[in-house]
C-alpha cells in the first residue's frame, strides 16, 4: 500500500517539502511581510534598549572616580526603572560627597565632570551618551526653559529636542516616555488577557447562567464611558503606576473576554471537541489542550491593537493631567505643556512627543497588520 500513502497536500506543502506545523507556517508567512517583520525587529530592539535608558540618557554619571573611590550613580536608576514611573525616588549622592563644595543636594555630574577636568587630580566622571535626565529641571544650573531643538547650553552641551517650560530636556523625556508608555501598555494588555481569556473561555464553554450573568455585567461595563470614569477616579485618588494599570485593566478585559467567549462557543461544537469528550478527556484538558489553542487566532491578532489602544489611553489621560503622577516623563503631559504654550511658537513641545507616539503606534499597527494577514488571510477574488 505504498502508493496509498503519498502525502497529498490539502494545503500548500507537498512531497519533499519539510514538515511544518501551522504555527511555523504562520511565522514564515509573518516574516514574509517585510514591513511588519522589520517593524517588530525595530520596536522590540528599541524597547529592550530602552530598558537600559538610565545608562544611555541620564544626568547621573555612569561612573565617578573620586579620591580613589568609584561610584556608579546611574546603576541605581537602572534598578529602579523596571518598576517604571518611580523616577526621582532613588537615593542620591550629594554634591559635597564627590567634591562639589557647598552642594548638599544631589550632585550635578555634568558640572562635576567639568570640575574634575579642570582640577586634573586624576578624578574622572564618565557620563552617559546623552547627559540629560528626564526630570532635572530649571533648578539645575545651566537648564533654561524653552530651548529650541539643537540648541546648545552655555557649556556647549547639545539639546537634541530642546527643553520644556521648566527646562527639562525634551529628548530625555521623550525617550523615557517611550519606555513607560510601552511598559504600561504591555502590562495592561497582558493583565487584561490574563483576566479576559479564562473568563471568556468559561463563558463560552459552560454557558448557561454564568454566561448570562457575565454578559449582563459586560453590557453594563461596556456602556460606561470608561476613560471618563477613570478620570473621575484619578481625580479623587491620585494613583500610582500600578493602580493606573489596574484601572485600565478593569475596563479592557471586556473585549478580550467577548472574543474568547465567541471562539469557545463555536469551537466546543466542533467535532474534535466531541472526539475528545468521547475518549474521556477531562474537561480541564479539553479547555486547555484542545479548544484553547484553536481559539487563539483572533486574540493574538488583536494584541498589537490592544497595545495601540492602551498607549493611546495613557497618553490621553496624561494629556488631561489625570495620568501618571508628575514629574513622571510622559508624552501626554508633554503635549499638554505644548498646548498651553501653543501661541508662543514652541512647536517642538507638541510635535516631538506626538511624533514619538505616532512612530511607535505606527510600528505596532504595521506589526498588527502583518500578524492579522499571517493568521487570518483575507482572500480577495473578484468576478466581473
Amino acid at each position, binding site marked *: 500500500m505504498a502508493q496509498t500513502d503519498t502525502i497529498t497536500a490539502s494545503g500548500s506543502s507537498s512531497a519533499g517539502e519539510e514538515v511544518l506545523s501551522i504555527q511555523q507556517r504562520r511565522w514564515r508567512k509573518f516574516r514574509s511581510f517585510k514591513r511588519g517583520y522589520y517593524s517588530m525587529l525595530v520596536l522590540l530592539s528599541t524597547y529592550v534598549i530602552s530598558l537600559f535608558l538610565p545608562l544611555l540618557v541620564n544626568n547621573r554619571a555612569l561612573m565617578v572616580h573620586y579620591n580613589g573611590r568609584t561610584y556608579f550613580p546611574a546603576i541605581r536608576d537602572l534598578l529602579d526603572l523596571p518598576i517604571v514611573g518611580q523616577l526621582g525616588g532613588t537615593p542620591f549622592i550629594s554634591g559635597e560627597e564627590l567634591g562639589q563644595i557647598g552642594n548638599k543636594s544631589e550632585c550635578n555630574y555634568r558640572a562635576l565632570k567639568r570640575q574634575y577636568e579642570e582640577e586634573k587630580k586624576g578624578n574622572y566622571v564618565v557620563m552617559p551618551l546623552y547627559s540629560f535626565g528626564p526630570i532635572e529641571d530649571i533648578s539645575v544650573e545651566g537648564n533654561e526653559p524653552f530651548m529650541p531643538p539643537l540648541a546648545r547650553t552655555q557649556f556647549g552641551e547639545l539639546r537634541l529636542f530642546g527643553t520644556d517650560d521648566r527646562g527639562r530636556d525634551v529628548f530625555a523625556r521623550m525617550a523615557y516616555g517611550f519606555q513607560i508608555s510601552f511598559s504600561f501598555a504591555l502590562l495592561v494588555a497582558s493583565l487584561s488577557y490574563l483576566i479576559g481569556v479564562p473568563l471568556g473561555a468559561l463563558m463560552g464553554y459552560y454557558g448557561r447562567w454564568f454566561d448570562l450573568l457575565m454578559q449582563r455585567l459586560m453590557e453594563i461595563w461596556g456602556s460606561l464611558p470608561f476613560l471618563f470614569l477613570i478620570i473621575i477616579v484619578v481625580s479623587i485618588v491620585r494613583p500610582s503606576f500600578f493602580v493606573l494599570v489596574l484601572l485600565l485593566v478593569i475596563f479592557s478585559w471586556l473585549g478580550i473576554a467577548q472574543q474568547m467567549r465567541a471562539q469557545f462557543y463555536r469551537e466546543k461544537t466542533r467535532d474534535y471537541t466531541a472526539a475528545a469528550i468521547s475518549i474521556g478527556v477531562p474537561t480541564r484538558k479539553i479547555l486547555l489542550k484542545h479548544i484553547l489553542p484553536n481559539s487563539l487566532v483572533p486574540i493574538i491578532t488583536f494584541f498589537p491593537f490592544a497595545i495601540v489602544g492602551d498607549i493611546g489611553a495613557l497618553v490621553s489621560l496624561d494629556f488631561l493631567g489625570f495620568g501618571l503622577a508628575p514629574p513622571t516623563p510622559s508624552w501626554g503631559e508633554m503635549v499638554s505643556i505644548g498646548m498651553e504654550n501653543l501661541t508662543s511658537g514652541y512647536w517642538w513641545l507638541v510635535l516631538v512627543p506626538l511624533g514619538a507616539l505616532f512612530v511607535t503606534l505606527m510600528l505596532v499597527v504595521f506589526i498588527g497588520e502583518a500578524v492579522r494577514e499571517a493568521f487570518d488571510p483575507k482572500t480577495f477574488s*473578484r468576478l466581473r
Partner: protein
Amino acid sequence: MERKPLLQVRNLQTHFNIEGRWARAVDGVSFDVYPGEVFGIVGESGSGKSVTALSIMKLIPDPPGRIVAGEILYRGMDLVQLDYHEMYRIRGKEIAMIFQEPMTSLNPVFTIGMQIAEVLQAHEGVSEEDAYYRAAELLTQVGIPDAEKRLDDYPHQFSGGMRQRVMIAIALACNPSILIADEPTTALDVTIQAQILELMVELKEQRKDAAIILITHNLAVVAEMCHRVMVMYGGKVQEIADVFELFGNPLHPYTNGLLQSIPRPDLPEYRGKRLVAIPGNVPSILNLPRGCKFCTRCSIAIERCFVEEPPLIEITPDHFVRCHLVETTLAQPRTFDGQSFAETA
C-alpha cells in the same frame, strides 16, 4: 453527425495561483454539447469539473484563477474573447447556471420575487410589474405552492429543496439555451434530490433544443439523467462516451474503478462482496504526476504511463478515452487533442 454543437469547448486551460504556484485546475479540456442533450461531467474533488463549468460562464474568480488558453464557442462565438460587458448578455440569458449550495446561493437580504424579477428586467427589458408577474409564474412552474404570496418571502424562510427550486426558476427565467447545473442535488436529502431531478427532467421536456450540462460526482445521478458523459480526473478529460456505452463498457481504468468501488445492492453478483477500491488518494492539483494523471493510482499502469501523457483518442465511434493501454479499433480515430474536433468531424 448531422447536429451542430451548441457549445464547443476547445483546449480550455484554467489555472489557479495557490500561494505563488500555478495549479492547472483545468488543463486542455475539449468537448461538445449538442442541443437537446443532457451532458454529464463526472469527477471527484479537484478534478476540474466545477472549474470547467465556471470557465464557460467566465465566473473564474480573478485572482487567483485565470483562463489561460482555449476557446469556448457558443453558437460559434468565442466566449473567452468576449469582454465582461458582453458576457452580461450571455449569462442568465443564453447560458444559465445553478449551484451546489442552495443555502448560500441566494442573497439573504432580498426577497425571492426581487431575485427572480431582476433577471427578467436585466435581459428582457420588461417592466417591474410584469417581471414580478412572470416570477410568480416561474415559481409555480418549479412547484412552489402559493407562489404569489411567497414572492415577498426571503430566502431564509425557504427550505433547502425549495431554495434549489428558486434557483432553477431564476436559471430558467430567460429560457436559456444551456443550463449548467453544478452538483444541484449534492447538498440535498435523497427524497428531495429525487424531487429536484424529476423537476429538471420535466422542465427539460418542455424545451427540446436546450441542453443541460450536469456536473456531479454521483455516478448514479449521471446514469439516471444524462445522454453523454465526460469523466474528468486531475484537470483532464479521461473519457467521453454515450451514457450506455460508458456504463456498459468503461474503458478507462479510472472510470472502471469508480464504477466498481460503489456498493451496488441492486446487482446480486456484487451483494456481500468486498468492494474493489481504487488505491491511493485524490492528488492535489498542485501535485499532479507528469504523465497520465491517474498513473499513481492505476493498478495496470506501465512505465510509459508515468512519463508520457496519453492522448484522448476515439476508441469506438464517439467513445473517447485517454489511456495508453486501450487500443483503438477505428481506422481513422479522432482525437480531441491537438487538432480541432470540428475539422476531423
